[in-house]
C-alpha cells in the first residue's frame, strides 16, 4: 500500500505523530513490532504521566490508552506484531518492508516517521564483571517481569544507577515485598528526577550511595552477592570492595535511542543525543521527509514532551517543499533539539528541548538570531537529568545561537 506517511513504532511518540498527521488529512500507517500498541508505557504502572498534557497524574497504561484511543479515533491504521526488516529511499519517498504472522509485506510512503524509542544500556556496558548467573536484569526487563507478568525476580535487591527507571523499580519491588538494600550511583549527583528520589527512595527509607558502583557479580546459578566499590571522578573504582549479599541486581544505567533504522539509511548518529539531527518539526536535516520523534530522537524525561514534539512532526507531514536550514549554535549546553532551524518556516513559537551539563540554582537561557539577542528566559533548579523546554518567538535569516549560563554572573 501507499500512504502519505508511515510511522514506525506505536508508543506515545508514534501514536501521537500518527494522530496529528491523520487529523491534518494524511493517510497514515503505524507499524508496531510488539503485540500491543503503547510502547514502554504499558509496563510503567506508576503515576506521574500527563500532568502537563492532561493536568492529571495518570499511570503509563492510562496515558498509552488515551493516546491510542485518540490515534484510532483519528483513523490511523495500526499494524501490531509487525517488524520492520528494511527501510529504503525511493524516488519520491520511502519503502518499508516488514514481517509478521501474516507474511512479508512492503509499503510505501512520501514521509516516514521513526518513533522506535530507546533501549537500555546493559550491565556489561558499565564494566560489571564477575559471573553471569540469573538475577541480573536491566531495570526495564525487571519492570516487564514484575508489572506485566506478576513475577518477582528476587527478594533482596541491589540497584545500580539512580536513573528514573531504577528509582521507580526500587519502589515497585519494595511494594511487591522485596527488600531493596540500596541504590548505587557512580556519579556524584543522582540521575533521576528529584520527585522520584523523594517518592521512591525517601518514602521507603532506601539509601542512595553516590559515587559508588557495582563492580562484580558473584554466584553460579543465581546471584548470591555483588561487590560494591567507591569510584573516583572518572568513575573508576577505587579502594576496597564491599560484598553485599543479594539475589537480584537491577541495572538502570541509561537509555540509548534505537538508531539502527536511521543508520540503515546512511544517516549519522549525533554523539550528544544518539539520535539524528532535525529541524524544529523533527524532520531530518539530511533527508527531507524523514522524521524522528520521541526517545528515538533524544531521551526525554517526560512523556508529555514526547507527545508534544511528536504532534509537531505529525502536523508538518507533507507541508514543506523547500527548507532554509541554519544550524542551531549552542553554548553551555549538553545538547539542544532541534539542531537546525528551517528559517523559512518559523512559526509563532519554536520550542527548544535542551539539557544542561551541570546544576544551576538560577540560570538564564538566551537566544540570539542573526547575531542579535532576541530573547532571555530565566530558569531555576536546572539539573542535568531534567530536560529544559523553552519556547522562543523569533525570526532569523542566517544564524541562531542558544546560550545557557548562570544567572547573575
Amino acid at each position, binding site marked *: 500500500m501507499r500512504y502519505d506517511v508511515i510511522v514506525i513504532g506505536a508508543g506515545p511518540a508514534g501514536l501521537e505523530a500518527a494522530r496529528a498527521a491523520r487529523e491534518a488529512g494524511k493517510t497514515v500507517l503505524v507499524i508496531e513490532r510488539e503485540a500491543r500498541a503503547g510502547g514502554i508505557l504499558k509496563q510503567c504502572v506508576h503515576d506521574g504521566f500527563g500532568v502537563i498534557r492532561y493536568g492529571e497524574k495518570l499511570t503509563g497504561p492510562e496515558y498509552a490508552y488515551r493516546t491510542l484511543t485518540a490515534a484510532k479515533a483519528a483513523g490511523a491504521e495500526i499494524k501490531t506484531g509487525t517488524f520492520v526488516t528494511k527501510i529504503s529511499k525511493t524516488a519520491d519517498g520511502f519503502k518499508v518492508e516488514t514481517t509478521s504472522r501474516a507474511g512479508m509485506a512492503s509499503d510505501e510512503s512520501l514521509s516516514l516517521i521513526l518513533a522506535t524509542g530507546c533501549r537500555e544500556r*546493559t550491565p556489561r*556496558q558499565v564494566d560489571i564483571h564477575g559471573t553471569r548467573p540469573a538475577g541480573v536484569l536491566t531495570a526495564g*526487563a525487571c519492570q516487564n517481569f514484575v508489572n506485566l*507478568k506478576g513475577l518477582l*525476580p528476587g527478594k533482596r535487591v541491589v540497584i545500580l544507577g539512580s536513573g528514573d527507571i531504577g528509582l521507580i523499580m526500587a519502589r515497585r519491588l519494595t511494594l511487591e*515485598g522485596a527488600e531493596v538494600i540500596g541504590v548505587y550511583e557512580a556519579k556524584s549527583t543522582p540521575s533521576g528526577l528529584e520527585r522520584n528520589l523523594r517518592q521512591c527512595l525517601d518514602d521507603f527509607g532506601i539509601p542512595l550511595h553516590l559515587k559508588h558502583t557495582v563492580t562484580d557479580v558473584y554466584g553460579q*546459578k543465581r546471584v548470591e552477592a555483588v561487590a560494591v566499590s567507591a569510584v573516583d571522578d572518572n568513575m573508576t573504582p577505587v579502594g576496597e570492595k564491599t560484598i553485599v549479599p543479594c539475589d537480584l541486581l537491577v541495572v538502570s544505567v541509561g537509555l540509548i535511542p534505537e538508531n539502527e533504522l536511521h543508520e540503515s539509511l546512511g544517516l549519522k548518529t549525533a554523539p550528544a543525543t544518539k539520535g539524528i539531527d532535525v529541524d524544529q518539526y523533527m524532520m531530518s536535516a539530511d533527508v527531507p521527509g524523514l522524521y524522528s520523534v520521541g526517545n528515538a530522537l533524544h531521551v526525554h524525561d517526560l512523556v508529555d514532551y514526547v507527545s508534544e514534539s511528536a504532534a509537531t512532526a505529525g502536523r508538518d507531514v507533507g507541508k514543506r517543499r523547500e527548507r532554509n536550514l541554519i544550524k542551531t549554535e549552542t553554548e553551555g549546553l549538553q545538547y539542544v533539539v532541534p539542531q537546525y532551524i528551517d528559517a523559512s518556516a518559523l512559526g509563532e513559537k519554536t520550542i527548544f528541548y535542551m539539557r544542561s551539563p551541570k546544576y544551576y540554582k538560577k540560570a538564564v537561557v538566551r537566544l540570539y538570531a542573526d547575531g542579535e539577542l532576541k530573547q532571555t528566559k530565566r530558569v531555576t533548579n536546572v539539573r542535568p537529568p531534567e530536560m529544559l523546554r523553552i519556547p522562543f518567538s523569533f525570526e532569523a535569516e542566517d544564524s541562531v545561537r542558544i546560550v545557557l549560563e548562570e544567572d547573575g554572573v
Partner: protein
Amino acid sequence: MTYIQRVRRALKKRGFEVGAEEFNGGVRLTGELDSWDDVVECGRLAVDKKRSRGVVNDITLRGYSPEPVRRPDTRDDSLDGYAPDVLVIGGGIVGTAIARELTRYKLKAALVEKEYDVATAQSSRNDGMIHAGIDLKPNCRKVKYNTRGNKLYDVLSRELDVPIERTGQLVFYTARWQKLVYPLIKLRASKNDIPIYPVSREKAKEYVREPGFNYGGFMCPSAGAVSPYLMSVALAENAVKNGLDLFVDTMVTGMEVKEGKIVSVATNRGTIYPKVVINAAGVFSDKIAEMARDRHFTIHPRRGVEAVLDKKSYPKSKTVLGRFSISGSSGKGHTKGGGVIVTIDHNLLLGPSARECPERENEATTREELDEVVEKQTALAPEIKRSDIITYFAGTRAATYEEDFIVEVSPVTKNFIQAAGIQSPGVTAAPAIAEDVALWAAKMISGGEAIPNENFDPTRKGIPVVREMTPAEREELIRSDPDFGEVVCRCEQITKGEILAAVRSPLKVDSVDAVKRRVRAGMGRCQGGFCQPLVVDIIAKELGISPEEVTKKGAGSAVAPYSEKGRRV
C-alpha cells in the same frame, strides 16, 4: 642422570623446594608453594616429552582451598544399572564429536554431561576459529588433528547444516626482520600440509594501516570461523538421531576399577556399567583419568577473556588479523596472542587473553583482564571503540604441562580411552580426534574390526535462520508456520518460530541460555533486555510449565522465581 634426577635438579636450581617422584611413567611433583605461577612453573620445568609420559603436578597453593566443583542438583537412580557399550564423559565439542562418530558403528553409545546443556564450558567460551595451524609445532598431536580436522569441517558443515566460513588468517610482521623467517614458516607449513602464501606490504596495508604493522605478512587461507556451540549442539543432535543416549545434569563421581579395567562408573543418577569409557572431560579430564587409574598429566587451567563487539563495528574484511610472534610460531608460546576475529555471526571478537589460575570453573571476568584484551587488540584495529563492546566472557582452557593433546588408548586401564587436555585448537581438531577415538572404541567393542552401523544418517537439519533468508523464502516459511513471521529478539531478528524450534529440538532445551546457544536470541546489543521476558513465556508455554520455573541456565537458576501475587484475602 635419570629423567627424575634431572627434574629434581632443575627444580632445585630454581629454588623450588618440592618433591619429584616417578609416577605412572612420568613424574609426580608434591609440595606446597606460595604462588600459583610458581606451581605452574614447576610443572613446566618437569616436562620431558621424550622420556616421560607426563607431569602430574600435585603441588598445592598455600592457603588456597579449591572451589567445590559445580554439581548438578539432580539426584536419582534413573541410570542405575544402565549398561551401554561405550560411555563418553563430557559434552563439549570433543565429547559430542566422539559421540557422533561412535554412532557410525554398531554399538550402544551414551554420553554424560554434568551441566544442563552441551557445550557450556570451553566449547562455548572460545573464538570459534577454524585454525589453519600455522603456529603449531610439527609432529605434535595438536598439528596432526588440527590439519585433519580443518579439512573435515567442509563435510561436517554440509552434513550438519552448520555454517562455516573460510575467512583466512592474515599474520602481520611487526618488525622488518621477521620477513626473513618466511622461508622457514613456508617449509613448516608444507610439512604440516597447511596452505600459505606471502602478503606484500601494500596488500597488508589494505587490512591494517597502523604504524608497526607495515611490514607485510602471510596469509593462511584455510583458517575460518564456525559457531563452536552450534557445532557441538549439531553433533549431539545428530548423534542422538543415530541412537546416542545423552544425559545432561549427570556427573561422574567415581569409578570402580578392577584388574586394570573399569567395571562401573558412579554418577549422581546411579551406577553405569559401560564396556568402554572415553574421557572427554575438558578441564576435569585429569580428575577422570585419576578415577580410571591412569593419571599421567595435570590440567593447569588457563583463563582467557574475550570481548564481543556490536555488529555495527563489523569490519571491511572478515579475515582474521593476528600478529607474528616468534614464540607462538615456534610452538613454545601458550597463546597465539589472540587477535581480531570476525565470528561466523559477524560480530567482532577481541582476545583471548591467557592467564594461569588454580580454578577450573572460574568463568568470571575481571576488569583488569578485559582492559588488557582491549588495549592489546585495538592496536590492530584502532577504530574500535570501547563502547562498541556489548559483552565479554571468560573461559578456561584445559592445558597440560606438555601443552599437547592426549589422544590415546590407555596403556594402563584396558577399557579406557582419553581425549584429554584438549585446548586450542580443540574446536578445529575435535572432528579428527573423534574419528580416531571412536574407531578405537568400536574395535574394543567388536574385539576385531569395527562394525559399521548401516542405518547411520550423517545429516541433520538446522533451525532455519530467518534473518538470512530472502523475502520470498521468508514468505514461504511464514505460510507454512506463522511463528516464523513473529520477531521476538529484535536485535538479532530471531522469530518465535526459531525459538520454538530450539525448544522442540532433540536435546533438552528448557532454559534461556540453551535457547540462546541455538538461535542467538538475546545475543545482540540489548543482551536480552527486551526479549528475555518473551523467551521465558515461550519456553513456559511450550513446555507446559509456569514462567517462574523457567531458568537461565538449568536447575537453580530461575529467571524470575517468585510468583506470590493473588493469594486472596
